[in-house]
Structure formats: structure tokens, C-alpha cells
């Protein structure tokens, strides 16, 4: 790092000049921060202030800038100096807005501001300006896996936006499930009758688009590389392999119906007159091709009475079947009941449901079915008893609380069995459990990998516990834990055609965002546009593999000597590898063990008789830090003894920071990260979870230091905790008074 020149700027605007002694802060920057050029300005973010900084860069050769003003989350456009390393000391949201404007508070408030200036000066000196990932690829082609409604819609949308598409379909024809439907649930006014599926039109649109290259009867043999430079081998039926250069991937591999043979008590697999929803679609399609009468499969007699059993093998609490609701089946059964009623109103159609769930405009569709005379009965089906060609559906009527209710002489029973994701191999399944399952005499089909990724962490994208691909269904619905690979449609969560088409459009746009960012060497999301990337000092690496195992995004592979190979374009810049590394050789240009360590060390620790404890807060920049900023905006006061350092993710916390802080005489350390586990809110999916696993072992460190375990606190903070966070801080500060000052002060 040749010739760095640091400059510090202190703003007096927004009340900072009234509440703080800014001249003293300038002196602190010069004396303690050892910054040769330190200035204050009345209004730093206005044109004049920014011009002053720019002038210093040009004429004074300033390379590193420390700005003591508002939060780093504010005024990002004014303080945008892409060529320079920039640190921000949060004097507004972090100091004057969370402290009372009283004479007695003035001293501690000033001390807080002085520490933040010292920390900013320390941090900026440990930084370099991020230059962007040089290991880029410029492919703009999108790979779509799956030729159903979702896949075709993704392909069409991407093509319309100007991106070439390669579409790979396993079967010999496009269309997927939707092509097997007789009709679909209506999506236009007046939502009264089943509508045409529209699949034919989609297929001809795909086939007629010269920008879309379609492989039928084809699978993905191998996926290698990273966003912008994926190399994908497409294996076709003839045995030939075609290699394609791909920028981003959308996996739209859809679903399989839950196997009704697993439901013998409902007659599944025991009679041809008990069918699943796909079976009824086939009967309806056959009827439409003939005389329009849906016939009983066993003897070809017209169906006079049909019962639809909702939630068959779904929302199961016993653990035998699907635990979830597939969401689309109520509307589908209503549609199928209409197949009968529209052809012949005298056919008895009964839908037995526990909760009728009709999303979208399904409520109008439901009402239309009632008008047409479909009988809706709230009940739980216990058994389907087969007596020759007809059957009796026994159920518990939940409105009349009649456990012996039954529908007799039923010609056809339709089981609404729900969707199971076609998500490939579950890479997180423990090997032992797989073996155990194999030992049982089950005829389970072993899942086949879809993407065949050459990634160290496995050949497919990670799954949620129900087998759908992992993506946060509210915050980032399409993003898998493999950067540049997106999932859309029922492989992601159960859904109907309308939702799948919306999904497809969203995933196409996300994939475009990923390949465009990849070409520029920037992060895709959630740190969109971030130019920093992990750098590793390989000569210090001990090949322990923690980084390659822990990376939530499978970005790090291993070479033959077990050294990590960083695929920067796959990286989301969370820093989990940096937190995991026991020898601390992984760092980012503007975020490293040193940048945070320097801040920790810069804080002035008063002696144990001062009654001024110091608490270090490492706050996640995604949720906890904004919550703290917003607490400031709402003027929710908290203790002046805390010093807050934003971190990229709880996963990036290296335990050396905690040890350093405690050794330096801090009385306590608070860790603020997002919720982890099945209902995670972590923006890096596994980051906070991995961070917590690491922190759970901090007790040993505390023991060796002979410190109380209250000195380190791990807290779950959400972005909405604007009032709760100050309360937590104050409560912890009070607790620490009871514990007493740290014995490490003054060493």
C-alpha cells in the first residue's frame, strides 16, 4: 500500500455543531487518529462540502477519506468517491439523536463522538478502495431448465428483453403438466367457468422465436463455472453432448403429484375408479374427444356421482404424508367439478374439504360452482370403501359434528394429492439417513441430479425441509443459494399456472440482473453493485476447508492440494469465509479482520474507577444497523457506553474480534444478527446460523480469560425492532453494572 494519504472531515450540520465540540473532534482526528488533514464543515453533504473533498482528492492527493457526519446508510450519493477508500463515523443517528440534549449528558455524548472519530480513522487506514472482481465472464445467454409453463414463460420473457435463451426439456415435447390439462382455472373476468390452458400458444411462441434454442429429450450432464461464465453440457437422446456458454440459469423443473398409491385407505391404487387430479384431467380430455360424457374407468358407464377429496395426503400431522398445503388444489377441484356440471347438471358433485382455500380470484370461481350446484361439504374423509364399481366415501362432517357421515353410490373419487418438487438431489441429506432409507424395502426412485453442478458442495441447489428449493419466500423468492441460478414455479413452492407465470417473469429479470452484474465484476444481491470480493493469502492457508464447507453459496471449491479456489462471481460478499478462517487469511478490500480490529482497538477505554463501562456492539448491516439508525430517527435513547460497529453478517464475525475486545478491557460484547433456523431472516441464508454456531463456543474462550459468560451476548434483531433494540442495550448495560467492571482494564 504505497503512499496513502488520509483526510478526515467533520460535519457541523444537522445539529452536530451545536451538540458536539467539533473543534475537539478535529483535534482528536489529528492527534489520536493521526490524520494529517482534518477539517470541519458547516454542511458537508451540500455541493460546497463535497467540492471541498473532491478538491482535496485532486490537489492534496487524498486517497483515504473519513467522514464524521451521518450514518453510512445516509447521503450515499453525496459521499460517493469510487476511487477512494471511505469510512463513515456515525455522529448523527449513532450519537446526537440517541442521546438527550442535556448538560449532564454532554460529556458522555462528546466521548461517544470522539470514539467514533478514532474508530473511523483506524478503519479507513486498514482499507483500500475496492477494484472489482477481475475474474469475470460476459455470456448473456440464459439457460432455462424445464419446458413447462414456467420454463417457456421465462424463455419468452428473457428473449423479449433481448437475451438469448437455451431451453432444455427432458421429454419429447414442450408443455409440461399444463399440456395434460383439459382446461385451466379462469384468470379473466367473470371467473365463472374453466378456460383454455393457452399452452399451445406458448409452445408456438417458443418454437417461433429464433432467439430461443430448444433441446428436447435432453438433460444437463454438467454445469461448471460461475455467473457470466457457466459452461453447461447438454446431453441429448442420441448420446451427443452440446456445450453451451451460459450467463445465468433458471431452473423450472416443476413438480410431480404426490403418489396416491401411498393412500390405500382413500382407495388410491386399489380401484380404477379412484383417480388423482391428473387422472381426472385425462378422463375429461378423453371425454371431450368423444361424446363429452366422462365415464367410469372400470366399465365405461357415465359418471352420475363424483366426490372430490381435498387435502388427500396433504396437511398431514402424522408425518407420513405431505405436511403442507399445495394451495392450488381447491381451485383445481372446483374446476374439475365444473367439467361434470357444465356437461350435465344432474351429475352429483360433492367436494369434501376441511378448509376451502381459493387464492387469487378463486372466490368468484367458488361462488360460480355453488351456483352451478356443486355441493361443498366441510369434513375430513376417513375412508373410501370400494363395493364393486361404486364406492362409499366415509367422512367426519365438521359442521354437524357427525363422525358417521357418508356419501354412497359414488362412481368416481378424485383425490387432490398436491405437489412434490422436482428439485433433484438433496445435497444436505446426511449420508447415513439415505442408507437407512435404502435398507427398507421401499421402491423409492432415487432422485436424479438436475443441474449436475461441479461445485464442491454438491450437484444441485440446496432444498428446504419439504424438498422445495431454498429461497426466502418473501424477501428473495427466486434466489437460490447458488448465485446466478434461480428457481421458478412449483419447484420453489406449490403453485398454480397463474402464479408460475408470474414467478417465471420474476426469475428471468433476476437472472438478467445476475449476468449483467457478473460481467462488471460486481455482486448481484443482496450487496448489489458491491465491487469488493474476498481475497485470500494462500501462503498462510492451512487447508482446513472451513471456508469451503461453510460458504452458504457454494462459491469456494478446492483444488487438488485442498487449497480454496474462490469463484468470485458466485460470491455474495457476506464474509462468512472470513469469519470462519482460523488463520485469518481471507479479507475484503474494505472489510477485513483488520478494519474491524482497528476500530475495536481505537476506542478509548476509561479506567475501572470511572464508572464508564464500554460495550462493543457488532451489528448486522442488513437488519440490526438500520434498526439502530431508525431508533435514532425516532429519538429512542440508549446508553452512551456502547460503541457500534456494522458488520456484513453475523457469519463474518471472527472470534478474534471478541477476544481482542475483552482483552482490551471492554466490559461486554453484544452481537446483533438476524433470525436463523428454518424461518431464517438472514440475508445470506446460513450466515447468522453459522455465526451463532461459532459463538456458541465462545464460552471456552471466556473461561480461559477467567471472565463471566454474561460478557458476551448473542441477540436476534429484526429490522422492525426500533423500540426493542434500545431497550435491549439499556438492559444489558444495567446487567453489566451488576457483573462489575472488566478486570482487563488498564493493561
Amino acid at each position, binding site marked *: 500500500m504505497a503512499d496513502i494519504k488520509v483526510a478526515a472531515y467533520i460535519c457541523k450540520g444537522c445539529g452536530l455543531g451545536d451538540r458536539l465540540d467539533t473543534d475537539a473532534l478535529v483535534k482528536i482526528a489529528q492527534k489520536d487518529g493521526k490524520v494529517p488533514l482534518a477539517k470541519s464543515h458547516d454542511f458537508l453533504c451540500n455541493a460546497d462540502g463535497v467540492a471541498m473533498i473532491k478538491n482535496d482528492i485532486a490537489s492534496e492527493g487524498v486517497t483515504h477519506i473519513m467522514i464524521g457526519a451521518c450514518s453510512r446508510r445516509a447521503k450515499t450519493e453525496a459521499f460517493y468517491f469510487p476511487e477512494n477508500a471511505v469510512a463513515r463515523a456515525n455522529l448523527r443517528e449513532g450519537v446526537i439523536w440517541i442521546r438527550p440534549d442535556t448538560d449532564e449528558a454532554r460529556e458522555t455524548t462528546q466521548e461517544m463522538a470522539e470514539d467514533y472519530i478514532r474508530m473511523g480513522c483506524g478503519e479507513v487506514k486498514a482499507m483500500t478502495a475496492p477494484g472489482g472482481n477481475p475474474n469475470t465472464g460476459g455470456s448473456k445467454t440464459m439457460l432455462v431448465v424445464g419446458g413447462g409453463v414456467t420454463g417457456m414463460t421465462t424463455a419468452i420473457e428473457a428473449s423479449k428483453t433481448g437475451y438469448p435463451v437455451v431451453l432444455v426439456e427432458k421429454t419429447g415435447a414442450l408443455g409440461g403438466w399444463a399440456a395434460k390439462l383439459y382446461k385451466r382455472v379462469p384468470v379473466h373476468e367473470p371467473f365463472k367457468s374453466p378456460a383454455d390452458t393457452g399452452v399451445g400458444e406458448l409452445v408456438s411462441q417458443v418454437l417461433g422465436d429464433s432467439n430461443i434454442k430448444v433441446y428436447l429429450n435432453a438433460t444437463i450432464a454438467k454445469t461448471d463455472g460461475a455467473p457470466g461464465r457457466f459452461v453447461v453440457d447438454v446431453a441429448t437422446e442420441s448420446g451427443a453432448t452440446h456445450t453451451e456458454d451460459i450467463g445465468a440459469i433458471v431452473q423450472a423443473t416443476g413438480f410431480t403429484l404426490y403418489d396416491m398409491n401411498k393412500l390405500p385407505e382413500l382407495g388410491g391404487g386399489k380401484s380404477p375408479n379412484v383417480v388423482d387430479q391428473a387422472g381426472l384431467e385425462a378422463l375429461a380430455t378423453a371425454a371431450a374427444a368423444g361424446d363429452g360424457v366422462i365415464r367410469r374407468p372400470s366399465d365405461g358407464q357415465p359418471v352420475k356421482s363424483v366426490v372430490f377429496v381435498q387435502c388427500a395426503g396433504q396437511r398431514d400431522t402424522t408425518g407420513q404424508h405431505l405436511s403442507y398445503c399445495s394451495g392450488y388444489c381447491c381451485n383445481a377441484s372446483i374446476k374439475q367439478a365444473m367439467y361434470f356440471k357444465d356437461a350435465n347438471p344432474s351429475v352429483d358433485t360433492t367436494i369434501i374439504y376441511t378448509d376451502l382455500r381459493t387464492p387469487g380470484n378463486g372466490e368468484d370461481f367458488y361462488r360460480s360452482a355453488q351456483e352451478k350446484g356443486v355441493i361443498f361439504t366441510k369434513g375430513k374423509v376417513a375412508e373410501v370403501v370400494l363395493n364393486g364399481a361404486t364406492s362409499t366415501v366415509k367422512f367426519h362432517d365438521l359442521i354437524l359434528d357427525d363422525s358417521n357421515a*357418508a356419501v354412497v353410490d359414488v362412481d368416481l373419487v378424485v383425490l387432490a394429492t398436491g405437489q412434490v418438487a422436482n428439485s433433484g438431489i438433496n445435497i444436505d441429506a446426511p449420508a447415513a439417513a439415505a442408507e437407512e432409507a435404502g435398507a427398507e424395502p421401499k421402491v423409492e426412485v432415487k432422485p436424479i441430479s438436475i443441474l449436475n453442478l461441479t461445485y464442491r458442495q454438491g450437484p444441485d441447489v440446496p432444498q428446504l425441509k419439504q424438498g422445495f428449493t431454498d429461497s426466502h419466500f418473501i424477501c428473495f423468492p427466486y434466489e437460490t443459494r447458488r448465485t446466478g441460478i434461480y428457481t421458478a414455479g412449483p419447484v420453489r413452492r406449490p403453485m398454480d399456472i397463474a402464479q408460475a407465470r408470474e414467478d417465471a417473469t420474476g426469475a428471468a429479470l433476476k437472472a438478467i440482473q445476475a449476468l449483467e452484474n457478473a460481467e462488471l465484476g460486481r455482486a448481484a444481491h443482496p450487496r448489489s453493485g458491491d465491487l469488493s470480493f474476498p481475497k485470500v493469502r494462500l501462503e498462510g492457508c492451512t487447508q482446513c476447508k472451513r471456508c469451503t464447507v461453510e460458504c452458504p453459496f457454494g462459491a469456494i471449491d478446492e483444488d487438488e492440494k485442498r487449497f480454496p479456489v474462490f469463484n468470485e462471481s458466485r460470491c455474495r460478499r457476506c464474509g462468512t469465509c472470513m469469519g470462519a478462517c482460523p488463520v485469518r487469511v481471507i479479507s475484503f478490500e474494505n472489510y477485513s479482520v483488520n478494519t474491524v480490529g482497528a476500530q475495536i482497538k481505537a476506542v478509548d477505554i476509561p479506567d475501572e474507577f470511572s464508572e464508564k463501562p464500554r460495550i462493543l456492539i457488532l451489528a448486522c448491516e442488513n437488519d440490526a444497523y438500520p434498526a439502530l439508525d431508525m431508533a435514532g430517527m425516532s429519538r429512542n435513547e440508549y446508553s452512551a457506553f456502547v460503541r457500534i460497529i456494522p458488520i456484513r453478517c453475523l457469519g463474518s464475525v471472527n472470534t478474534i474480534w471478541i477476544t481482542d475486545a475483552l482483552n482490551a478491557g471492554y466490559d461486554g460484547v453484544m452481537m446483533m444478527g438476524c433470525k436463523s433456523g428454518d424461518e431464517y431472516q438472514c440475508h445470506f441464508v446460513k450466515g447468522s446460523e453459522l455465526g451463532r454456531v461459532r459463538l456458541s463456543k465462545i464460552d471456552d474462550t471466556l473461561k480461559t480469560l477467567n471472565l463471566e459468560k454474561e460478557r458476551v451476548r448473542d441477540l436476534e434483531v429484526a429490522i422492525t425492532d426500533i423500540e426493542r433494540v434500545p431497550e435491549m442495550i439499556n438492559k444489558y448495560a444495567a446487567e453489566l453494572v451488576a457483573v462489575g467492571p472488566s478486570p482487563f482494564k488498564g493493561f
Partner: protein
Amino acid sequence: MSANTALAEKYRNNFLKEIEEQVEMGDWVKMCMQCGVCSGSCPTNFQSAWEHPPQELFMMIRAGKREEVLTSTSMWNCTSCYNCIVRCPRKLPITHIMHGIAEYAHRIGMAPKMQATRFFSGLFWKNATKTGRVNELKLSMGLYFKDGFAQGVKNGMAMQSVALGLVKAGRLNVMELFGGHKCKDQKGIQAMLKKAYEIERNRKAAKMAG
């Protein structure tokens, strides 16, 4: 009726069809979505006066429980406050359906004979149509003696002070017991009602015939 044929009738559309065709507003019954807002809104329901709340009656109709529905006292308890109609998210005219079912049960002779509302309705109608004016004394006495002479005397004694108060205030004329006041054109009223009966009879006969 054997258990087997009862089961055979159950969960067929027959009774629902009967209600749709015979009961005024009966064709709305199929539109109920079992949310229970009607039951929750009913001001009489908190006293457990309802054997079956409205949405349950509708479900019983769909389930083919003919006997239970038509002999039920539930629909007779409706006070026509219209809360359910106002609140029903499916816009079912619940109050009218309740009266429709009650009327149908009465028409085919299945309504509970001594149900108080039904008894009072009959008493009131007979009383009012006889002279064209309501004779309050005879009406209340008829109601007192509904459950037999001894009970009637007991009821009368219990209400003694109220009755005397009404007499003193000039609101109750004891002489009404003998004949009572009439409207001017008693014959005209009778003729009008006779005609109305005839029209109604023809309408219902046509309905019954399908």
C-alpha cells in the same frame, strides 16, 4: 324407513332440491359458505334458543336431514332483526329463508305444534281476521290458556296487578270480552281475505305440482 334407505337418501341432492323448489328464497341455500357470521350475529343465539344456527340448518339441508330440519324449532325463533342479512358476506337473505322454511314446515304439517311463536302467530291471525281489529284481551287470554286451564289461571294471577293497572289507565276494556270492537266493513274484510286465500292456494298448488 330402514336405516339403509335413510343412508341412501343422505347426501343426495333431493332435500336441497325440495327446499329450492318449495321454499321462498330456498334457492339461496346452496350459496352458503359456512363462515358462521349469521350465527355469530344472531341476538337470540346467546340464550341458546337455537337448536341449530342458520348455517348449520343450511348444511343439514345439503346433507339431506329432512326430518330434523322441518321439525326443528330453530327457524321459529327468528325475530326478524335482519342482522344476518346485513352481515352475510355471500348476501344470502337468511331471515327470509328462515321464515320460508318455517312456513313450509307449517304447510306440510311438520312444524312443532305447540311452539310458542307458531302458536301465537295462529292465534293472532284468527283474532285479527275475525273482526278486522285485534282484540287484545282475547289475544292475551288465549296465550295464557295455551297450556291448559290451571296454567292459564296461574298466568292470569301472576299478571293481575299489571292488568288492573291497565284497566285503571283506560288501556284495557273488560267489556271487550263480550264481542269487542269491529271495523266498519267487516264483510268487505272477510271477502278480501277470502280472495287472497284463493290466490295463495292456487299459487302453492301450482308450486307443489312442480
